[in-house]
């Protein structure tokens, strides 16, 4: 199949129980990807159970009525497939890519755990996965330089009662408190066909795939609905310059500077995304040129957006200092670059560079069946319309200099900044054998 003008074929249907299904055929290789998004993430956790959505994701690999613990992994790998799951603030996903003649195995496995998870849940499995997740927390956060930014930045940007405020990986105490009853309740509330979307991309016949989906998922009962989230809406700006300084076991200061930004999928989002690319995508970006290449006060510089679709998105600048550079100087220089962009706007050349890079990345990401299935699920979950993925290149192309400048003028000012600043804690200053660590270039 040829992907004419970057559009992929998409068809959709919905089962009576509410499961929304997207199919995208491509017979260039005998591979098929299955991707299931549940519309639940850490935002849905209740007080005292931070980290539960993610712990629950681990439990989904501990078997179901007809599948033994860890057998899901074994069956998919034995079939020659790859698989994993991931948890985010507002969704949890499970995905497999397998040789195409194994499609039904994947659908059976996913349906078995959507329909019949609880008979397989035991205290021992929960205790083991709790230990695994605590180790995941240590590995990704507590024993990793700057690792805590994952929970500190959302906590700094969203107010305490906001669903995005609390830690996704969870606190050790809350993980300890999670019970089997929590598992049952979470499963009944959120892991229902009407709270999920299923996407299949790759080498399959749509008719057969549809019949298989109906066979395996069709008789799973719809859920009773989920409790509404707490208020998600945010003002367009913070109203102040927030700042938190974190002494950590690190060698070099690092500044995360976040701005409240337009939710994913809005017209303003695409302007924000292009603006982020102008500021911090690759070596031709403003931050890299100014801070890494010209002034040589930063070792690394990048910018990205969280792509949150509800309430508010975040645009984040992430810059690490060169040895010997004071964090105050670094933050000041980042702010000057942002001020300059607000005052002078972006040039047509910069826009062109940013859009071209985004376009190449988009085309490259369309190569993998797993990535295509994931994007289908994303647009189906957030907007009920997977075909939106075919509009992405056009939506980026439609962004104008005026829109980026308007975005910058509203969102990048001093009253909409949150600085999360990591500094080496007392006594952690490093020594570099052979040269002074504080060697500095002016």
């Amino acid at each position, binding site marked *: 199949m040829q992907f004419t003008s970057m559009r992929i074929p998409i068809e959709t249907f919905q089962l009576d129980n509410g499961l929304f299904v997207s199919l995208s055929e491509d017979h260039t290789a*005998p591979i098929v990807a299955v991707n299931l998004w549940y519309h639940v993430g850490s935002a849905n956790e209740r007080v005292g159970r931070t980290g539960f959505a993610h712990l629950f994701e681990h439990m989904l690999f501990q078997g179901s009525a007809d599948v033994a613990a860890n057998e899901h992994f074994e069956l998919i*790998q034995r079939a020659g497939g790859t698989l994993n799951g991931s948890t985010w603030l507002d969704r949890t996903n499970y995905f497999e890519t397998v*040789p195409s003649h194994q499609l039904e195995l994947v659908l059976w496995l996913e349906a078995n755990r959507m329909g*019949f998870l609880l008979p397989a849940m035991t205290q021992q499995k929960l205790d083991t996965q709790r230990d695994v997740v605590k*180790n995941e927390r240590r590995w990704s956060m*507590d024993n990793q330089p700057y690792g805590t930014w994952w929970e500190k930045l959302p906590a700094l940007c969203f107010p305490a009662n906001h669903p995005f405020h609390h830690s996704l990986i969870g606190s050790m105490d809350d993980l300890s408190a999670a019970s089997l009853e929590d598992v049952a309740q979470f499963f009944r509330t959120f892991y229902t066909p009407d709270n999920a979307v299923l996407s299949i991309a790759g080498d399959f016949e749509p008719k057969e795939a549809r019949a298989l989906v109906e066979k395996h998922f069709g008789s799973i009962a719809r859920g009773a609905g989920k409790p509404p989230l707490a208020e998600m809406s945010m003002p367009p700006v913070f109203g102040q310059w927030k700042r938190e300084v974190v002494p950590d076991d690190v060698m070099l200061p690092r500044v995360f500077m976040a701005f409240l930004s337009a939710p994913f999928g809005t017209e303003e989002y695409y302007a924000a995304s292009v603006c982020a690319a102008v500021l911090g995508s690759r070596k031709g970006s403003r931050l890299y040129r100014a801070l890494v290449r010209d002034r040589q006060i930063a*070792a690394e510089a990048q910018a990205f957006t969280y792509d949150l679709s509800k309430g508010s998105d975040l645009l984040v600048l992430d810059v690490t200092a060169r040895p010997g550079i004071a964090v105050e100087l670094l933050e000041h220089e980042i702010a000057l670059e942002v001020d300059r962009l607000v005052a002078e706007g972006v040039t047509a050349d910069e826009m062109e560079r940013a859009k071209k890079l985004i376009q190449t990345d988009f085309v490259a990401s369309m190569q993998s069946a797993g990535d295509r299935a994931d994007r289908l699920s994303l647009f189906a979950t957030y907007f009920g319309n997977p075909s939106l993925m075919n509009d992405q290149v056009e939506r980026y192309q439609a962004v104008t200099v005026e829109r980026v400048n308007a975005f910058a003028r509203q969102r990048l000012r001093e009253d909409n900044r949150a600085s999360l600043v990591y500094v080496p804690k007392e006594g952690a200053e490093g020594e570099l054998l052979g040269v002074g660590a504080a060697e500095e270039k002016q």
Partner: protein
Amino acid sequence: MTAAAPRMRRPVPGATRPYHFPRFELRRLSNGVQLVVAPIAKLPLVTIIALIDAGAVCDAQAREGVAQLTAKLLLEGTEASDGAELTERFERLGASVESHADWDVAAVSVTALSQNVREALALLAEVLRSPAFREREVERLKAERNAELLQLQAEPRGLADELFSRFLYAPASRYARPDGGDAESVAAITRDDIERFYRARYQPAAVTIVVAGDLRADRAESLLAETLGDWQGARVQAVTTNDAPARRTRAIHVVAKPDAPQSELRVGHVGIPRTHPDYFAVVVMNAVLGGLFSSRINLNLREAHGYTYGAFSSFDWRRQAGPFAVSTAVRSDVTDASAREILVEIDRMRSERIMQDELSLATSYLDGVFPIRYETTAAIAAALANKVIYGLPDDFFDRYRDRVRAVSAEDVLSAAKTHLQSEALQLVVVGDPAVVRPPLEALQLGPVAVYDALGRPLST
């Protein structure tokens, strides 16, 4: 139970559908530049990798890091454009470009839309043929390497990998020092060293251009003949390094990170070269030991004991013998128990034949996942690059799946007995010595010594 739905039976797989690795053509320009082209028309995208026989093993002693700096400096300015302008010329095309040197080769990789491939190839030729190595950029990249080395001291994963190599190889081995060089060697590197290295190694006869994507072989050849055809140069000598181990008996090296909540653990020894005839048996053996999620080591440490988020083993494939390592991060107070379990699993591989079920899991995974590995132009180009680097036969990819399936339990046992050396294992632990040292000593696996983050012995 909420659902009263009928439970479906386990499905039986349908018939397998045919797959072949993308066809590719081998060509050679008159000046010796080699070409490997795999035309793939699925999307208007092309990945190009220029491979140069200029890896880190070519570094002179006390100048370790030259190969990597040279490769990175290719993108920091040519005679025609300074670094900022050169970057802009690539990025205005929407092309992503990256350069680095690993142990065996230097590589410049470009991915671009096919409508821009002519300009992208011309730029690639320019960076290969006329890099400027401006003093300012040399000094900047040296300083960035220093920042990296400094960061490493506080980054337990990278630190464990780095010091594992240091403790594994004989001091004379290039593999014993970081591929990007250490603070001392990098400080000593001058612009002249870079220039000399470039002139000695970056010669047309030592260059292969790999192309995968929406570009036909004839077109690729004519575009490259335009830009690289008149590049003349001298022959290049092959370089090898000493890959001998530092010790032949077990030792435990604790790298002190006081108050660490977790220990980064590496257990292993010097492995075998990529071109070793036992390659397939070793790959299958490693999959069973620690290569898969359902491997013995991961199921033991993660799923049976909850000691870790994950544990895996790998052979680092190089032209010469790279490390074999079991890698994991475990809760500090079970560091000794984890080390013991890893040793048990290694010994069990060497003493008992694996079960048929374990063998079929490993071989059917490696066989079945083969097409999934090559979905992207970048992955196909990287596979073809490996073919070039290790001199793999032209039919390697076509025969791969048969050769995996041909490995027997007996082959696996014999590979484990030959290539896992229980007595030579080196254990590196980046962790809190107060917590991990006494129990590790009590295990009596071998002598325990404590070091700082630069690998200098600490007397305790």
